[in-house]
């Protein structure tokens, strides 16, 4: 089977790249070995949120100062500024509303009641421009009875520290009683399956009752609505008497799953082939180029393309793997950037810098990968697998994933013209 481009990895980076290529008229396939890390999204995407443990307000200022080798340095400020305006419209076309500014971070409220810098927040997720002045008045923190992945007490602590009054309540609706009988499956994404149609109306009535009882100005709820699209979110909002915002829950992340599904559907509706649950097992290299790849499911029928994109993520998604003695890229055994022996990969304190977070495949300035020291001319790496950045400490994972995807897609479009 022959495509213009084949993307290995179907998470946020691979899908964004694929969508942009499809819109330019390319024939694209994505091979995705299982579902992606997007399922654990925090409710927001970060561009550059932290530096040396301190919050960053103006992400572009810090991006201008990243060290050589950082994906943002490779992209360069001009490219980044050119690509940034593409982001929101691309997600909007897929049915994902993102709120935020490229020039100035806002803060999102975390499941444990902290405030962290964010670039783009999902529709109606709790966020503020500054954590020291919260515009919410009295807050009712409303949980669903029996839902264990949302923590009103921790959120209340965070709001109290910021000087807000709040009151925690919970409620349920009969439709959820069946689900509650399952001792393990009362999770955000399963709850969301039931909050559709008429249930939303009763949901709203319960919320409004609590608002009246608590004299709340604002409602915070766990993100448990709008699994497949944003419609239920809008419907509930219309029916609730005061502002209603969502706080991300512990996994699964509802908005993450929604984003994954919307992006994938959008990709498929644009004509992309999305091979889910299939794993690339080998590649046929010839003269510094990758000619074709084989997958577990397709067997002897190889996938050929002019251009390949590696978007396989970090360790979590098996873009990289580690044994006691080495870190490697498991599909093609591409060259990797790894510092030191095993004792240096990690720090015994979880919250300190973990070197492994920055590991990735070796790439040149335009993200081309290397194998056995030689550049592969038709293969580029995007997102987490490209390495060179600490997505966690910098809060830069989302921005790197999206911007490298858009950049590489542009390269391919220009080159294949």
């Amino acid at each position: 089977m022959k495509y213009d481009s084949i993307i290995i990895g179907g998470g946020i980076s691979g899908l964004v790249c694929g969508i942009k290529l499809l819109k330019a008229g390319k024939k694209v396939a994505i091979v995705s070995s299982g579902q992606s890390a997007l399922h654990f999204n925090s409710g927001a995407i970060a561009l550059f949120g932290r530096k040396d443990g301190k919050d960053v307000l103006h992400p572009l200022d810090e991006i201008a100062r990243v060290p050589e080798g950082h994906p943002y340095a490779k992209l360069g400020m001009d490219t980044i500024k050119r690509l940034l305006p593409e982001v929101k419209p691309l997600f909007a076309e897929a049915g994902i509303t993102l709120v935020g500014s490229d020039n100035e971070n806002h803060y999102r409220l975390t499941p444990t009641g902290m405030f962290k810098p964010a670039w783009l927040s999902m529709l109606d997720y709790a966020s503020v421009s500054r954590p020291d002045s919260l515009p919410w008045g009295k807050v009712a923190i409303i949980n669903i009875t029996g839902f264990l992945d949302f923590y009103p007490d921790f959120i209340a602590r965070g709001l109290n520290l910021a000087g807000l009054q709040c009151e925690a309540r919970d409620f349920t609706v009969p439709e959820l009683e069946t689900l509650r009988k399952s001792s393990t499956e009362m999770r955000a994404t399963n709850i969301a399956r039931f909050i559709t149609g008429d249930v939303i109306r009763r949901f709203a009535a319960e919320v409004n009752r609590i608002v009246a009882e608590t004299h709340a100005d604002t409602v915070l709820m766990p993100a448990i609505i709008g699994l497949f699209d944003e419609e239920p979110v809008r419907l509930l909002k219309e029916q609730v008497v005061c502002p209603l915002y969502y706080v991300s829950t512990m996994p699964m992340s509802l908005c993450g799953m929604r984003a994954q599904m919307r992006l994938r559907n959008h990709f498929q509706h644009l004509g992309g082939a999305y091979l889910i649950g299939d794993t690339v097992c080998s590649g046929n290299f010839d003269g510094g180029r990758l000619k074709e790849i084989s997958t577990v499911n397709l067997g002897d029928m190889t996938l050929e393309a002019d251009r390949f994109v590696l978007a396989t993520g970090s360790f979590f998604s098996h873009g990289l793997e580690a044994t006691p003695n080495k870190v490697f890229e498991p599909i093609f055994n591409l060259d990797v950037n790894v510092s030191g022996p095993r004792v240096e990969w990690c720090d015994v304190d979880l919250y300190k810098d973990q070197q492994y977070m920055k590991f990735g495949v070796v790439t040149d300035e335009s993200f081309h990968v290397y194998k056995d020291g030689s550049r592969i001319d038709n293969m580029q790496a995007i997102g987490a697998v490209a390495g060179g950045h600490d997505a966690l400490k910098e809060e830069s994972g989302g921005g790197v994933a999206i911007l490298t995807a858009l950049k590489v897609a542009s390269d391919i479009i220009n080159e294949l013209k």
Partner: protein
Amino acid sequence: MSQENNRHYDVIVIGGGATGAGTARDCAMRGLKTLLVERFDFTAGATGRNHGLLHSGARYAVTDQESATECIKENMILRRIARHCVDDTGGLFVTLPEDDLEYQHNFVECCHKAGINAEPIDPKDAIRLEPAVNHDIIGAVKVPDGAIDPFRLTVANVVSARKDGADVLTYHEVIGFEREQNRITGVKLRDSKNGEITSRYADLVINAGGIWGHHIAELAGVRVNMFPAKGALLIFGHRVNNVVINRCRKPADADILVPGDTISLIGTTSSRIPYDQIDNMDVTQEEVDVLMREGTKIAPSLAYTRILRAYAGVRPLVASDNDPSGRSISRGIVCLDHATRDGLEGFITITGGKLMTYRLMAEWATDLACKKLGRDVKCRTAEIPLPGSELEAHEGGTVMTRPKAHIIDLSTDQKAAEERHGSLSAEIKYNTLADEAVVCECEQVSVGELKYAIDRLHCENLINLRRRTRLGMGTCQGELCACRAAGILVKANKCAERTLRDLSSFINERWKGMYPVSWGESLVEGQFMSWLYEGVCGLDEIALPEDKIDAK
């Protein structure tokens, strides 16, 4: 000072390990007014940091007949009184091609001398009995080894002591002694939660502090030299073996593989450490390498089995010579009456020994205490089952847990809770659907079980909950359940600030054990953990430094 603080005890027992808890039980059962104090949590020391092996004594038969005899006697007693803590797996001593088969003959002879039923079997039968064992073995001996859960055992002793009127204080550190001339009359305690210092008084203080007893004795002005020998172990993700596998040779590194609850453990290494390092239990890369190199010899599948974590403990042996390895030292029990030894009245030290002989140690210490206090009461701890073990062992039947209202069969978490708490599991309430919900999915811990542990088993923090229930001890090492459990805990302690810090520390403590084996799935799990707790939640904001949060 409140009235409670003025209460005068017959005995104060220092140390919340198996020995301390067992001594408190014995004292209370003999009618002594008893207070048990522990500076951190029960089982925080060597009790919670060993193999969890129900020794048959065979391991000591060749080098130490006395220990071997004690072991097999206590082994039989524990099978009766601590059924719910014991897993009767049986054990094998196998000879590898590189080992001397001659050793086996001597070994079997010594076992028989000690009263241990050691039965040489055909290696083929041994492989049938335990397919995980190296198929190249040239000799095998069957022994009555088993697994014992030290967490359950200790807590059952605490519950028993409490039933007989003992008081219990965890997170109270002994910082000094009250004394009148040459008599100890009480202890000075610091409450680690608020720093408050108080004193408690007793006719007799028993030092059961394990390796830390060295320091406690110093506070009392007497000298008991402990020999700190560090031993590291690895935990594998599931039961690799269902029968204990020992290597039939002179005790050396990584020669015992024990199935413990849902996992298997290989250990240990042995290295002498300075006394000031006994609280620093980091496992080094070298130790991991030794454990893997030797461990894969007795069970080759370990080479490709997922490792969950590494940990280390300190053997509380009493120093007697300058043996650099610590292995030839007698593991015999040392019970010191400091009145006769050092001229200090009102103070006893019980030390040496091992987990297997905790009950006997308690018996010796309590015998001495009774003698000193002029009480003539017989020890009954060998006859009366521990709380939770009153009923016959069963295969999913005799305990009176009721199935949750809407399903016919016991759910997996209920079955797991029965295994953990024995007949006490009947006290777990499933009053609402919320109580039935599972918090820790790997180890099947429900909200009801956590509430039971919080109400009844001295749980102040997540680590306490982990030790009482196995919360966060499974495959994901707390990554999914820690936050949920914190959400339950905060309802009980009403302090979000403390619970959040606790959560942040708990996650870091879990990582500390994953760190020495951070490759493969452990690294993936670690990355996932970081994403959730630092990335999504932002718990790094309130994190304490790692050295402040060691498993306490």
